[in-house]
């Protein structure tokens, strides 16, 4: 029951957000907002595997790029509306996530992390050598100026923004549902003591595979509309290290325990980076993210959510 109320509240927030954005005439805000929402999806997706199960995925950029490049591929072979492309991008990334997980998750935890790190390099090699999707030169996707939705002409960027908003809501609702389900408790046993979980009959491999597939699929979904957003997709921009570091830093800084941590981290870091990219330089702002990540894992291991909880506990005393 409470879940249904949560979904209603989430939808109301999204609608209010979108309604308010309609009052704004500035297109830049949609471009900036899209990026922040995209990071909410990535951070939430990372947290399903990283925060709930305790398995680190360094290959967020690879899964994101898989989604983006599946869009480029289908755009060339058989053009389809973006919502369908999002589902397809999610499928492709989910399948790759499953395969990676199947090969490496049976072994020690760190092997999976290393394999995801290498996956990004190898997928980039494949894409660079694959001329059909643009190879190293990159691929153009021409974005129409407007789209006709139910009789209304709306600017395309607003349409993309709306799709990403819906996707962000979907990711958060998924994460919250998992947290409160049997699945979530299973994930937590893996994170806390995998050996004990295995011994008590928790099907750890199956649960880990579910988490990897789900997390990979969400990242791919976040990447699928990206070619339309950017207009010109190059391997360097799709596989940018920014995605990998941000999707780890945002949950770590927000707090990995629940769905709210990645959300807070993504909104905070995403907004700071949007401001910093305009005012300072993009290299400096990714450096800031890296330094914040290291500082937080050392000083505040439970993130901002953990800091607030500590403060509240102290006040109660």
């Amino acid at each position, binding site marked *: 029951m409470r879940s249904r109320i949560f979904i209603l509240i989430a939808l109301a927030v999204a609608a209010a957000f979108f309604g308010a954005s309609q009052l704004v005439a500035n297109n830049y805000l949609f471009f900036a907002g899209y990026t922040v929402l995209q990071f909410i999806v990535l951070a939430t997706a990372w947290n399903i595997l*990283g925060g709930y199960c*305790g398995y*680190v995925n*360094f290959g967020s950029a690879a899964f994101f790029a898989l989604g983006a490049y599946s869009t480029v591929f289908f755009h060339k072979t058989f053009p389809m509306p973006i919502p369908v492309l999002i589902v397809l991008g999610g499928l492709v990334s989910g399948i790759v996530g499953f395969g990676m997980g199947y*090969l*490496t998750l049976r*072994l020690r*935890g*760190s*092997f999976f*992390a*290393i*394999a995801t*790190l*290498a*996956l990004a*390099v*190898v997928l980039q*090699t*494949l894409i*660079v*050598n694959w001329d059909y999707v643009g190879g190293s030169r990159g691929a153009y996707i021409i974005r129409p100026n407007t789209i006709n939705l139910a009789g209304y002409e709306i600017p395309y960027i607003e349409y993309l923004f709306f799709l990403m908003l819906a996707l962000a809501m979907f990711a958060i609702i998924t994460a919250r549902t998992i947290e409160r389900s049997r699945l979530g408790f299973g994930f937590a046993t893996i994170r806390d003591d995998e050996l004990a979980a295995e011994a008590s009959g928790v099907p750890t491999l199956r649960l880990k595979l579910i988490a990897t597939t789900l997390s990979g699929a969400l990242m791919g979904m976040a990447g699928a509309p990206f070619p339309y957003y950017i207009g010109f997709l190059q391997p360097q921009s799709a596989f940018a*290290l920014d995605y990998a*570091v941000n999707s*780890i*830093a945002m949950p*770590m800084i927000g707090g*990995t325990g629940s769905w709210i941590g990645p959300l807070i981290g993504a909104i905070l870091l995403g907004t700071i980076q949007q401001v910093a990219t305009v005012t300072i330089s993009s*290299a*400096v702002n*990714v*450096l800031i993210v*890296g*330094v914040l*990540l*290291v500082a937080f*894992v*050392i000083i505040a*291991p439970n993130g901002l959510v953990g800091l607030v909880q500590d403060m509240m506990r102290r006040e109660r005393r």
Partner: protein
Amino acid sequence: MDFPLELLINAIIAGVLLGGFYVAVTIGISIAFGMLDIVNIAHPAFIILGSYLAYILNAQFGIDPVLVGLLMLPVFYVLGAAVYQVYYLSFEKRGQEALRGLAFFFGILFITEVALVLVFGVDYRYVEAAYIGPAVHFRFIDLPYRLLIPCVLALAMFTALQLYLGRTFVGRAIMAVAQDQGALSLMAANPIRIKRIAFGISIATAAMAGAFLIIIQPVEPSVGREYIGRVFAICVLGGLGSLPGTVIGAMLLGIVESITATFYGPSWAPAVSFGFLLLTLAFRPAGILGR
């Protein structure tokens, strides 16, 4: 069509030389990951740092890059010991190395790369030395000094480390800490101190590897990323914690990469290591010489 035998032989020899260099790159990871169970994914970043130091000292004072590598050994040892101290206090002691420790090293990798981009830009940097360029010719076989010298020195470094680990008290203690930390403390050796020394040595090897790297190829800050897959592939392929295994793994990967680059084009070479890594993990996770 006649089989290009000469090309194949040259590719194999180049692969062996490259493999020698990979020994230097991987040996630090074999110690940190294989023996200490510290997943130091930032190791390539330390190697790139070593390359840039070699570049600076070479460009400013004309010091030979290999000499720079030797001079930097103690500096990198201290750096490594310091990094381990932070890692131990923040993560190992709290039992959080699995998630946050990994994120910590990832952060270091990232910060080093971006900082180097900010200071030096993304231009390729290279060093100058008399032995970069000429080669020994033996009938149809080419042995470029640029590859030969790092290979020989890397194998010397391996031999020295292997002797150190087998013959000295601290060396044996490092091997012991990999097997049973509790038993080691019963032998009146402080496991934390031993691990700090071992991690210091591991990072010190990165100073030499960095010097070799910039002798072999021009370097820019993101080159290190290509080595993450390679070093872990070699380490796992050879068998965790086994230095001779590392040498075998490095040579194998070097040869296969060199043949791939010769016959299919160099842009495919990075995919080889990942294939190796996945195949090893799928069929023999213990590696060639692993227990």
